[in-house]
């Protein structure tokens, strides 16, 4: 049977845990959608930088007629123009995670909330610490996502008496997080809590804390809802009792909604904001996908 509807999916390449999850869910969705909707052809394309993503958009749209584009943009500013160009040819545009600079381009917007990831963690932490204490923070790679999370976090913390002792980049890399945490521990004899901004880095942090045998660190928190960390939450770990979801599966949701648009059941337009509720031992099961790589 002819697949007469083409749905292009453009996402970042799997360079670290979270994007790895995105690729995984996109590949799952591709298989499922192609099986469920015989007339839809899904074309998946990964890109390792904003430039490469623009290139692959050009490639996809210049060589075939795209009926829909699902895109998780590297950065908002840089991708706005190129996506607008695709839209001019009449393509249905679904944007995931990071909104474009000109929201009128997006027919469908499914987003996580990076600011909330930071803010919710900060609120929880300042509650537990009673509004005072000394903490250290690890940043990811200098990008908008990292920026927003840090902003959400530090805005909340700024209103308390909690002091951020130090904040440095560890590039969303377990290994670098391990080293950075070792150095933090050497530098500060007393640390009440550490926020790693991402669960991948959190694993490195915990390893370093365990090695040093430091008992002063009450909380070590991350974010993103990586499955190893959710397991810890489920087991009621004292140091890491919560995480925040930032599910890579949002790409899957967006792809399904877009497919539904063409299957004709329902017109799917508008914005869908995924919250970032705390994952706690009580609700952890909802966020636990054992088969996912992330």
């Amino acid at each position, binding site marked *: 049977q002819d697949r007469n509807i083409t749905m292009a999916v453009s996402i970042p*390449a799997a360079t670290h845990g979270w994007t790895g999850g995105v690729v995984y869910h996109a590949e799952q969705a591709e298989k499922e959608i192609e099986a469920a909707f015989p007339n839809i052809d899904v074309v998946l394309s990964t890109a390792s930088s904003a430039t490469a993503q623009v290139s692959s958009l050009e490639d996809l749209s210049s*060589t075939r007629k795209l009926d829909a584009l699902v895109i998780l943009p590297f950065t908002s500013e840089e991708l706005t*123009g190129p996506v607008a160009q695709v839209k001019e040819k009449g393509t249905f545009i679904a944007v995931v995670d990071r909104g474009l600079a000109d929201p009128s381009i997006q027919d469908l917007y499914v987003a996580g909330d990076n600011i909330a990831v930071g803010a919710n963690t900060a609120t929880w932490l300042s509650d537990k610490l009673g509004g005072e204490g000394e903490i250290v923070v690890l940043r990811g790679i200098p990008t908008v996502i990292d920026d927003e999370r840090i902003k959400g976090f530090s805005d909340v913390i700024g209103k308390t008496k909690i002091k951020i002792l130090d904040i440095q980049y560890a590039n969303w890399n377990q290994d670098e997080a391990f080293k950075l945490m070792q150095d933090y521990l050497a530098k500060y004899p007393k640390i009440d809590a550490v926020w790693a901004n991402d669960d991948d880095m959190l694993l490195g942090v915990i390893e370093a804390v365990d090695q040093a045998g430091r008992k002063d660190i009450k909380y070590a928190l991350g974010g993103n809802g990586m499955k190893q960390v959710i397991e810890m939450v489920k087991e009621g770990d004292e140091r890491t009792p919560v995480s925040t979801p930032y599910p890579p599966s949002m790409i899957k949701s967006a792809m399904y909604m877009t497919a539904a648009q063409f299957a004709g059941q329902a017109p799917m337009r508008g914005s869908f904001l995924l919250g970032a509720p705390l994952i706690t031992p009580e609700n952890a099961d909802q966020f636990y996908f054992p088969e996912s790589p992330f």
Partner: protein
Amino acid sequence: MSLATTTIAPAGEESRIRWADLAPFIALALIVLFGALVNSNFVSSANLLNVITRSAFIAIIGVGATFVISSGGLDLSVGSMMAFITGIMIMAMNYLAPAFGPWAIPMGAGVALIVGSLCGLFNGLIVTMGRIEPFIVTLGTMGIFRAFITFMTDGGSLSIDRSLREAYRPVYFGNFLGVPYPVLITFAVVMVGAFLLYKTKYGRRLTSAGSNVEVARFSGVNVAKVRTIAYVIQGFCVAVAAICYVPRLGAATPTTGQLWELQVITAVVIGGTLLRGGRGRIGGTVAGALILEVIANVMVLSDMVSEYLVAAVQGAIIIIAMLAHRFTANR
């Protein structure tokens, strides 16, 4: 004494050299052919124009790198330098926009060219005056430029003023008689570069410094100066690339230009320039840049490999292309 005279230029040798020079173009042709077989859309003029336009950045920076590498140097900082220059240029344009309107664009471009040349000068002076391995120096400045752009963007992104956006767009997206501007600019850079490298005294001296420093020194070539100028040319080319780049994405981020240095060096080497210096091939560099871009394009168009393995296939194709042209060129 039956000395053979100059007229008996041996045909065999001449043509062997030409073959070796043609190798990158033949490799390019083969990959294009492969692309056409894999996906019929590949040869559509829209797609081909896109690919060629896109390869402009690596080609332009590669022209500069051809100078640096044939002088016996290396520049790992081009990717970060490009991001840094992009950042400076956007800041300059945004600053000037209220007062000068669209004139802020050429003024910002001028700033970019100056900053680029200065960045190159900085690299060049440390390499030549400090007599340190170019690898180490430019690895260091790679970190420095990258940190600067991260600082300038506060880890986020730095966008060009909306008022300039439309006026500037055509520099990447526009065309003249059907030929996109970036292609025209690349052409101009290549022409000037080839002229400098092959037709001027400077080019001669540069190649001699890359071929044998001692001989160059004993022949009165100011090796330090010649090499430093090569780095300045590299910086200038990076700035030209930045000028074409900004209208495409309209912003600079800390990840702009990441790993371009490796692509640039690959393009230069695939093109037939010797990594140890002494021989530069500007035309080959352009072919090399096209090869890289075409491979990436074919990978996107063909649905053959798992997303995870794209990098593997690209790596393998480059190695196979080099192997193939080694064995056809037979030397």
